[in-house]
């Protein structure tokens, strides 16, 4: 146990913060522990956190995808446009929308890999471009009147109190953990993030893994966009605008190194839970949105700073332990 705790120091810190948050929320708000609230807590940010899970893969792999929020908007816009102007079965429209998301990821992945451009720049262009594509499709219109079953999937509980999206998130998290921690693909993601050249020299298909990740990122963003459309019941060109920084914040808070090669799905999950609980607790206490954002910002800095300072102080003490390693330096 202590061995595990030592190698997962980040997760331990986050777990502590999460527990404190939960206890504080439970004491401060009588509404917090209700089942409805707990479901809502996930449901209200479900699209962001689903994308955060795949973003963790991309960042561990040493890349970044800034275009996710725009791809969410783009896929949803494709879905809405097909629904509005063709007689296509709605399920087919959904599939095409998902394919559009995957295609967006594929294009960016190919540019990154084949032209060897930094993904930061490529996906920054994607961020502008795919948002633009969504606006091209929808202009100033809001498209709704989706089939009732679709709206219901987004808005009503499906299994017990859980809406589809929350179930999807749970499954996605489990699959992500499995893939990252247990499979050869996950291993490659880490090793490439740690050193792409070593991987290349070891016969790992670096380009293939990267392209697959970008496609997965696009596909997941597309999926999240479709889920969002179902939850909102209608789609506009601005859907999910500005989500990217929130998503990246959650991943980095989860202890994933921006330089790639390290981070765990457990850490990302804990970071997601922590952020959601803090926002929910503050929301129930009628604290303004901007202060919620600021609190998350403070937490992001504090969660790296405090262990750093603690280890600094400890290293000054006689018989102190070895310095804490931070998530990324």
């Amino acid at each position, binding site marked *: 146990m202590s061995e595990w705790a030592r190698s997962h120091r980040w997760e331990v810190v986050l777990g502590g913060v999460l527990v404190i948050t939960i206890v504080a929320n439970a004491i401060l708000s009588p509404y917090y522990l209700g089942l409805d609230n707990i479901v809502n807590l996930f449901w209200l940010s479900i699209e962001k956190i689903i994308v955060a899970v795949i973003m963790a893969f991309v960042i561990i792999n040493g890349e970044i995808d800034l275009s996710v929020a725009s791809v969410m908007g783009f896929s949803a816009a494709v879905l809405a446009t097909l629904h509005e102007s063709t007689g296509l079965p709605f399920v087919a429209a959904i599939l095409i929308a998902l394919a559009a998301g995957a295609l967006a990821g594929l294009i960016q992945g190919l540019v990154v890999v084949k032209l060897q451009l930094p993904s930061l720049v490529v996906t920054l262009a994607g961020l502008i471009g795919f948002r633009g594509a969504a606006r091209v499709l929808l202009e100033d219109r809001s498209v709704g009147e989706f089939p009732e079953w679709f709206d219901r999937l987004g808005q009503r509980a499906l299994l017990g109190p859980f809406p589809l999206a929350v179930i999807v998130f749970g499954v996605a998290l489990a699959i992500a953990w499995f893939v990252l921690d247990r499979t*050869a693909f996950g*291993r490659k993601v880490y090793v490439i993030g740690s050193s792409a050249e*070593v991987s290349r020299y070891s016969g790992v298909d670096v380009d293939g893994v990267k392209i697959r990740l970008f496609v997965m990122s696009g596909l997941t963003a597309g999926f999240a966009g479709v889920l969002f459309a179902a939850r909102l019941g209608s789609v506009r060109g601005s859907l999910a605008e500005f989500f990217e920084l929130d998503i990246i914040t959650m991943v980095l808070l989860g202890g994933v190194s921006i330089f790639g090669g390290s981070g765990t799905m457990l850490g990302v999950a804990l970071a997601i839970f922590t952020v959601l609980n803090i926002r929910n607790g503050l929301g129930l206490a009628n604290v303004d949105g901007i202060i919620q954002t600021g609190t998350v910002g403070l937490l992001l800095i504090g969660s790296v700073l405090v262990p750093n300072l603690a280890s600094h102080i400890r290293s000054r003490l006689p018989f102190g332990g070895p310095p804490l390693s931070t998530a990324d330096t």
Partner: protein
Amino acid sequence: MNPGPEPVLELRLVSKRFGATQALADVELILYRSEVHALVGENGAGKSTLIKIATGIYEPDTGTMELGGHVFDPGDPASAQRQGVAAIYQEPSIFPDLSVAENIFIGHQDRGLLVDRKRMEQDAAEVLQRLDIDLDPSQPAGALTVAGQQAVEIAKAISLDVKVLIMDEPTAALSAHEVDRLFRQVRRLKQLGVAVLFISHRLDEVFEIADRVSVFRDGRHISSRPITDVTEELMVREMVGRDPSEFFIRTPQEPGQVVLSVEDLARHGVFRDVSFDVRAGEVLGFAGLVGAGRTDVALALFGVAPADGGTITIDGQPVTIGSPTDALNHGIAYLSEDRRKLGLSMTQSVTTNITLATLDRYTLSFGLIDHEAENRDAAGLRDRLGIRTASLDTPVDNLSGGNQQKAMLAKWLNAEPRVLILDEPTRGIDVGAKAEVHRFIDELARSGMAIIMISSDLPEVLAMSDRIAIMREGSLQGIRTRDDADQESVMAMAVGVA
């Protein structure tokens, strides 16, 4: 050659302990003005700790240091430099984006806040000239070879007016030709009154350059003598505490079928007309200067930088190799010369590194990794190669250089290649580990593997190879059998005087 009578740096009864490890125990070392003092010892002997103490990275637990007769307590490398002690490492720590001149003067432009680029370049040119180094001060340092970068570091030390220059394995990445040039610079340093502490695993170099030699073992100071008083055998015995006769073993055997055959291989602007073949059970050595194109041929065979002309034949079948995956599928593996950047994923565990190239073998359904099988194989290789590590889950970064080298070798052995290309397989590892690596090479050859060994260590190539291919400026000069090759003839071909 009399060592100058004037002591510059004196370390007395210096000790340093890390947790349970006594890294240094009451060691003594005295450097005199205008001498080259060699420090030898196996990895873990305490050389690195000593350097770090002398350059202010560590503080000694006990003991005293004096520089020029005054107490020397540097505190940090910058302050050590200011007081006159600087160090140069095996991997030069230069600024790739800055010019040569800027690299030389970056730490100590004391002419106010402004940088007078012209004057700086003039000054740099002057320093370089004093050392007989032929470099353009305005060119970016990142475009230099390792040797060039080291020369920049030496120039930097000279511009700092250092009294003591510590050189930590400066020749590890250099070809013989470049080593000669480095030694010229070292002798020039000596003339300028500098005390040079020279650390190397290559004993022949120690005999060539050093005035005195100190041996360390297990954190203790074993001996310090004038070079004229020691023999190679004595030095090795003191270093390892055992008999040196077990080095460079090679069991002669009859090679088998041709496994790999290369015909007119070329890559535009890099190498051309390279033809050779390698048989099962044979070691084909590749000699030549660094930059002669040996590594490029290896990279072409391994598919990293594929050839654009010629044919590669394996077991009589022509093959196309466009990527490392292709190469591995055809049974070709390549052990890189650059362990840290290309060989090992430093932050990952020993097991992860060993199975990295063979991950598919441990993949069950759903892509699940069979941890049990993976750990079993890794443990097997650990035992077979004698990799010393706390556990298989330890990041390879925590292993010593020799054990890292063995872990890298384990990765490729696990791939069970038919053709194994070893690029500088013993660079920067100590005598003991080197012998072990050589023993493996021999063992692998006996098991029927075809081995291509690139090495800048000429005695090593001569001792280990059945045949030796010599390259110069991108073309193959010729292939000699072991019997009709010696240091002089191979070197002559490599530098083009033959």
